[in-house]
């Protein structure tokens, strides 16, 4: 059986895929046995703590650590002097982990200590003397773009940025096709609106944590909660000047990431402390540190202009997007500009993105990075045009929807996609026609995400008792070990319970890209299927050997090798377990392996439908009903697909209504805790209905599309459309907190 053989997804009669078996890590997680980042200890372990800048922007004249080092129980102190030089490509990561000439944001790491206890470490931090020259700062994206804004860098812009702009504008991106001016000239109405969104945090419940051991022999071990332990290994090895193979990284159970655990913060610091102290060092961030000094997403300022005719057809669309990504180049504005109009099949479209630096923490990916904000602005303007022409918002979206073969606004032509299927499902759902009461409104919005594939390795070992050990290299961030086990069992024809899936460490597999880009079920799933097919080929070979017939004359069916063709029926079929039991006599252990760079991740689309009610006297919003319609390609484990839909929608609800980074005039973060960074709580919400649409992805053997990220793209827009309808006034600034809504209502009346 060729490894790349595809299944006709419409006809495949799945046995295990599409079922909802229990996850292999489940019992550990409901009994408290599962070990997360902070749950590992080592003999002789020290506690590491970080000293952070209280200033948003300051030159560091000097750092005196002598008093801290002299404190009993302090075993190591590190500062900028312990890092670098490094390759240009890793410079930003290093500077973010440990400030060099300047502290660039409130919370920027300036020094770190390793001590025998947390209380000694805390005392030691207070003994470190840092001489700061406080500099003017800027945290707002629009203010940072002003010509007289304090500049973080002298020369961070590349050639994409036109001359004469603020030094904080560091990149420009442009996408589109056609000629928007022609398109606008042909429109009956052109509507233009400006929008702002505040920065939000992924809000994973588990703070960053790691346990580092690096001895004088140069051999290192790192236990860490991360979405990508291979990437952590490579970055840490480079920052510490180690050979990659000398650092083994094990990914712990991970307590949420959503993109925020795709990079390093404390890990290189812990390794540096461990090397200096010659003892294991455990570091955990406090919640305050997580907010101040991990990687929230961008705040944005956006202008969107769309032309439409009374039949609902969009004639042209233009977006100007400005995203600040903190103190370093690399806000997700490029993805924002690529995705802004991706849901629509447009003749004339143009998006321009501006990447801006400010005195805020370096942004990290947050679930479909860059896309939710752009979708908020675009879908709000479409909603205004629907209102203007009194057109049904679902019909207008159907009329303009991207479909198979449409040229995406960011360049390529779409393959088989499911946007229209999600719109049709939403239109026909009872939710869409349910009655609304006073002060209530309904919002619709569509969303898109690219989905990625990437480097992936899997090892599938057939054990002598007929069970299967499946090693994957992508940390399990939402139940993926269950779906990998399902795909392996499906392919091998054995019960799901016979497969045990683990996430292997960096020494046990080739390089795996990070668990990001909605790639895990797609890529590791594809690699698992291929590894299973590799193993099946070997199993058939062993049977052929025992039967004394040609390998080609053996087929794999229902979990058994069977003689086929002219040998059919001549020998009793041999099960996987029977072949495995005698493997020692037929050539030794049997395993399947895959090392691929997975391609063909199908694009993903969703339509969200939401009802809300606004209290006009207080501006408070209650989400009344929420339904997600998203294309999953093929849902391997529908419960975890629904979970992604629901989780993304609720993160979007938080972003739309109450979550925001609030900086004071002093450039310090005002709400670095779950008390005032207000993520949704259980009592804020209704049930979130999840409708799985399946338009199989031709690029995956079972038709899988990633589902993790698209679910957060439509909510900001859908909720803004719903709240704007309920309040009777267009809300253009997220979050739509009660004071903002109340102010808009007062201004509107």
């Amino acid at each position: 059986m060729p490894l790349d053989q595809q299944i006709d997804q419409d006809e495949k009669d799945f046995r295990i895929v599409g079922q909802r078996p229990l996850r292999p890590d489940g019992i550990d997680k409901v009994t408290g046995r599962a070990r997360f980042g902070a749950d590992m200890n080592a003999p002789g372990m020290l506690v590491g703590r970080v000293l952070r800048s209280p200033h948003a922007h300051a030159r560091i004249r000097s750092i005196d650590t002598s008093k801290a080092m002299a404190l009993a129980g302090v075993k190591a102190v590190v500062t900028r002097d312990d890092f670098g030089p490094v390759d240009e490509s890793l410079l930003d990561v290093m500077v973010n982990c440990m400030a060099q000439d300047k502290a660039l944001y409130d919370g920027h790491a300036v020094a770190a200590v390793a001590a025998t206890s947390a209380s000694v470490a805390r005392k030691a931090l207070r003994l470190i003397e840092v001489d700061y020259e406080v500099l003017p700062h800027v945290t707002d994206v629009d203010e940072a773009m002003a010509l007289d804004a304090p500049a973080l860098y002298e020369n961070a812009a590349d050639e994409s940025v036109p001359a004469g702009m603020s030094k904080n504008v560091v990149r420009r991106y442009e996408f589109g096709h056609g000629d928007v001016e022609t398109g606008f000239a042909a429109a009956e109405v052109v509507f233009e609106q400006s929008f702002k969104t505040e920065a939000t945090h992924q809000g994973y419940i588990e703070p960053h944590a790691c346990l580092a051991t690096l001895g004088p022999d140069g051999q290192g071990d790192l236990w860490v909660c991360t979405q990508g332990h291979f990437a952590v290994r490579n970055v840490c090895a480079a920052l510490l000047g180690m050979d990659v193979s000398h650092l083994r990284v094990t990914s712990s159970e991970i307590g949420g990431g959503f993109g925020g655990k795709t990079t390093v913060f404390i890990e290189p610091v812990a390794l540096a402390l461990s090397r200096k102290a010659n003892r294991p060092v455990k570091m955990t961030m406090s919640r305050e540190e997580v907010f101040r000094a991990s990687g929230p997403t961008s705040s944005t300022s956006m202008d969107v202009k769309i032309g439409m005719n009374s039949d609902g057809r969009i004639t042209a669309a233009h977006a100007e997007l400005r995203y600040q990504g903190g103190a370093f180049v690399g806000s997700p504005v490029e993805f924002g500009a690529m995705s802004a109009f991706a849901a629509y099949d447009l003749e004339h479209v143009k998006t321009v993105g501006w990447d801006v630096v400010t005195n805020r923490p370096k942004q990290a990916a947050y679930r479909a990075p860059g896309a939710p904000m752009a979708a908020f602005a675009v879908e709000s303007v479409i909603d205004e045009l629907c209102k203007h022409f009194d057109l049904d918002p679902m019909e207008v979206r159907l009329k303009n929807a991207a479909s198979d073969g449409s040229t995406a606004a960011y360049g390529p032509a779409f393959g088989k996609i499911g946007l229209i299927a999600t719109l049709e499902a939403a239109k026909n759902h009872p939710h869409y026609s349910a009655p609304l009461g006073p002060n209530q409104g309904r919002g619709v919005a569509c969303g898109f995400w690219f989905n990625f594939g990437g480097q992936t390795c899997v090892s599938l070992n057939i054990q002598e008792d007929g069970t299967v050990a499946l090693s994957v290299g992508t940390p399990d961030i939402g139940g993926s070990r269950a779906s990998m086990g399902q795909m392996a069992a499906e392919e091998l024809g054995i019960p799901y319970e016979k497969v045990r899936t683990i996430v292997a460490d960096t020494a046990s597999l080739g390089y795996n890209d990070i668990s990001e880009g909605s790639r895990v079920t797609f890529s590791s799933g594809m690699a698992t299927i291929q590894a299973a097919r590799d193993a099946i080929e070997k199993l058939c070979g062993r049977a052929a050997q025992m039967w004394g017939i040609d390998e080609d004359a053996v087929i794999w069916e229902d979990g058994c090798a069977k003689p086929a063709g002219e040998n059919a029926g001549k020998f009793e079929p041999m099960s996987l377990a029977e072949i495995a039991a005698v493997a020692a006599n037929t050539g030794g252990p049997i395993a399947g392996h895959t090392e691929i760079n997975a391609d063909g991740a199908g694009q993903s689309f969703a339509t969200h439908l939401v009802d809300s009610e606004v209290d006009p006297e207080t501006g408070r919003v209650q989400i009344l009903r929420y339904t997600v319609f998203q294309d999953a390609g093929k849902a391997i484990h529908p419960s975890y697909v629904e979970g992604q839909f629901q989780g993304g929608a609720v993160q979007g609800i938080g972003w739309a209504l109450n979550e925001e980074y609030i900086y004071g005039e002093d450039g310090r973060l005002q709400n670095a805790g779950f008390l005032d960074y207000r993520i949704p709580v259980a009592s804020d919400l209704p049930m979130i209905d999840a409708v799985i649409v399946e338009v199989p992805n031709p690029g995956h053997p079972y038709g899988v599309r990633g589902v993790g990220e698209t679910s957060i793209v439509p909510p900001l827009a859908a909720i803004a459309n719903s709240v704007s309808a309920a309040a009777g006034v267009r809300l253009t600034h997220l979050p739509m907190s009660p004071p903002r809504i109340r102010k808009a209502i007062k201004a509107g009346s």
Partner: protein
Amino acid sequence: MSQIHVSTTINGDATEYLCEADETLLDVLRDRLGMTGTKEGCGTGDCGACSVTVNGRLVCSCLVLGAEAEGQEVATIEGVADGETLHPLQKKFLEHAALQCGVCTPGFLVAAKSLLERNSDPSEEEVRYWLAGNLCRCTGYDKIIRAVLDTAQEMRSA
């Protein structure tokens, strides 16, 4: 600094430990007793990941001093299952896929168990408000609420 000697009961077992005056019960459980099932998500009582009960009362162990446990009955996630037998809530959380990353799960289970011991037939709203102090960022709470309601129903009919 002299340490405080504490005699207490944890999950029914008599337990003794030494702790600093400013050490929380959460620190004691995790760092001194190796009971890492109780998680720290915030350290300020805002997330519920460290939920335990003290004398049957649901609390955040990050807001209790280790010294306060003297003579009290503490119950943690490690005591929710009866040996090999999972508590009905644990089973239902698995069946309903009411966890994704699982780091909030111990806190939710301890809190939900405390609810069902007081109210065997809670409404959806009562479950949502009782669990409002337990943050979950993965699931949107939907499957958690369903799992708790389903458990309550099953336990009533058992």
